[in-house]
């Protein structure tokens, strides 16, 4: 594999400095490593060739691994989040989204921050022989290629879907990341990502908005006790979702007073659905027809590709079921 050195960081500050400056005479900056799952995949596929990795696992600050009320540290594993009574009670959507991700092996190692910052799974991106837009090349191969798992919103010129289960769940809980190493102390999750628009900073080449040297230390979120999650998957063992929805509700009796709805696996960023949120206001949980009508709005403005039109059928279903899940109603049995 690649040759690189490993900076066993002793503090977040040390890590931050390292990713801003790097070792002498290196062409590219060092890359932060938490669990390392996504990094190792990229290294093995030959997508990156950094001179140095900066190991966050060696930073012994307990706050990085703690779960508290409305906050968990950046290095908390997905397993810890999924099994945390605190999180499950205060914001079940977060625990559910994470419990549904990947496999037990991955969840034991993958960290919260790593999950937010992981790169897309698009099979053209992950295969180094395709010089795609995201890698500085000239075209998106999904456009006239195999795009059954690609985006139906907000895409173009690159059509990836953002892979994080956690990000949409945090967004419906007004989640934000705590940062060190730059001017910003905090950044809302909704501002953490950008569309692959060449006019935006970062443009197509990156997905998130962190600057060199900025390191996530923790994730904060508001409680969302009435919240739910629903993913549609082709395969129920290890598989990425076809679409999923994260929902948080405020109820008045059996009526939805307000809703937060964010979809995943449908766009290059976690996809907010303000039209659905508006349509759900005042809808009764027991009014199936009204619920369906409100959730159908989810596909407004969708721009499906040649092979992923089916996602338009799935998305309203995922949204509606996440709403029911939030309310503690079994979507399949009532």
């Amino acid at each position: 594999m690649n040759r690189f050195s490993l900076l066993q960081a002793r503090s977040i500050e040390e890590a931050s400095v390292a990713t801003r400056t790097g070792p002498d005479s290196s062409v590219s900056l060092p890359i932060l490593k938490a669990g390392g799952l996504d990094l190792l995949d990229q290294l093995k596929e030959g997508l990156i060739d950094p001179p140095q990795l900066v190991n966050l696992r060696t930073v012994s600050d307990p706050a990085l691994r703690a779960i508290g009320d409305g906050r968990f540290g950046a290095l908390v594993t997905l397993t810890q989040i999924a099994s945390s009574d605190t999180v499950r009670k205060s914001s079940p959507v977060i625990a559910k989204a994470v419990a549904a991700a990947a496999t037990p092996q991955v969840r034991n190692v993958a960290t919260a921050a790593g999950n937010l910052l992981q790169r897309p799974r698009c099979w053209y991106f992950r295969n180094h022989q395709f010089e795609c837009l995201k890698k500085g090349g000239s075209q998106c191969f999904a456009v006239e290629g195999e795009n059954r798992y690609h985006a139906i919103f907000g895409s173009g010129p690159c059509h990836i879907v953002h892979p994080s289960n956690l990000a949409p769940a945090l967004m419906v809980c007004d989640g934000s990341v705590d940062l060190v190493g730059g001017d910003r102390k905090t950044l809302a999750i909704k501002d953490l990502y950008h569309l692959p628009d060449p006019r935006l900073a970062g443009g197509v080449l990156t997905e998130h908005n962190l600057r060199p040297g900025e390191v996530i230390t923790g994730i904060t979120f508001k409680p969302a006790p009435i919240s739910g999650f629903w993913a549609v998957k082709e395969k129920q063992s290890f598989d990425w979702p076809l679409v999923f929805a994260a929902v948080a509700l405020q109820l008045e009796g059996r009526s939805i007073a307000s809703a937060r709805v964010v979809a995943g696996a449908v766009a290059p960023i976690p996809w907010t659905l303000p039209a659905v949120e508006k349509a759900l206001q005042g809808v009764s949980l027991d009014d199936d027809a009204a619920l369906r009508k409100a959730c159908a709005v989810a596909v407004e403005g969708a721009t499906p590709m040649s092979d992923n039109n089916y996602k338009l059928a799935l998305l309203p279903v995922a949204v509606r079921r996440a709403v029911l899940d939030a309310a503690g109603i079994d979507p399949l049995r009532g």
Partner: protein
Amino acid sequence: MSESSESSGTNENASPPFIEPTSGGSGQCGAAGVSRRGFIQTLGLSSAAAAIGARADAALAAKSPSQADAEATVLGPDAVAMPLTVNGSRTTVTAEVGATLLEVLRGPLALTGSKEVCDRGSCGGCSVLVDGALVTSCMMLAVDAIGCEVTTIEGLAQGDRLDPIQESFIRHDALQCGFCTPGLVMACKALLNHHPKPSMDQIRKGLSGNICRCGTYTNIFNAVLEASGQPVPTDAALPVLPASEPTSRQGGT
């Protein structure tokens, strides 16, 4: 650098498959295998620096700031010594920092029970326990296992005394070609450690990170049920499902 290797007939794993000491300064002309009992000198790094893991090294904490600052906390890019604890034995392996835990286990440590199947963490064939947590060793750097207890399939049985899950595997024929078996045994072990009496749902999900191509899942489920002291189905009459019983297995958690 002392060289030692475990000789065992024609299949000794003395070959260091991934060590590339290219700089002359290290004085390495061929890397060492593993000494299970002895000490191996580190390559000019302080033992404290080499032993840093997620669990803080008390020795480092005790050093004065200026000394600590001056300590090299950078490993590599040349091969480094990695003190590891595998199956209860302390051992030191010399490898590049990019070496995965799986490579270290299968190469210098000659523990070939953990298999390389996909090398991308997608199939569970390389699963081991690190501090009791099930992980895919192909997607973990060996250096990240420093300071941790690594348990591989070889560490489960105590001599001829098999772990109960292994005995159940045998009784229920939960294996065919056997290549997925080490990873699945470890996954079952991890599952039972966390859920001593797992439900079928927990079993199905607990093993969902492991692929078996021969098709042994049915018997593995039964092996887990037996090893956890739960009834393995023994009904005489085939039961029949009621007219409509939807599943909530999909979608949510």
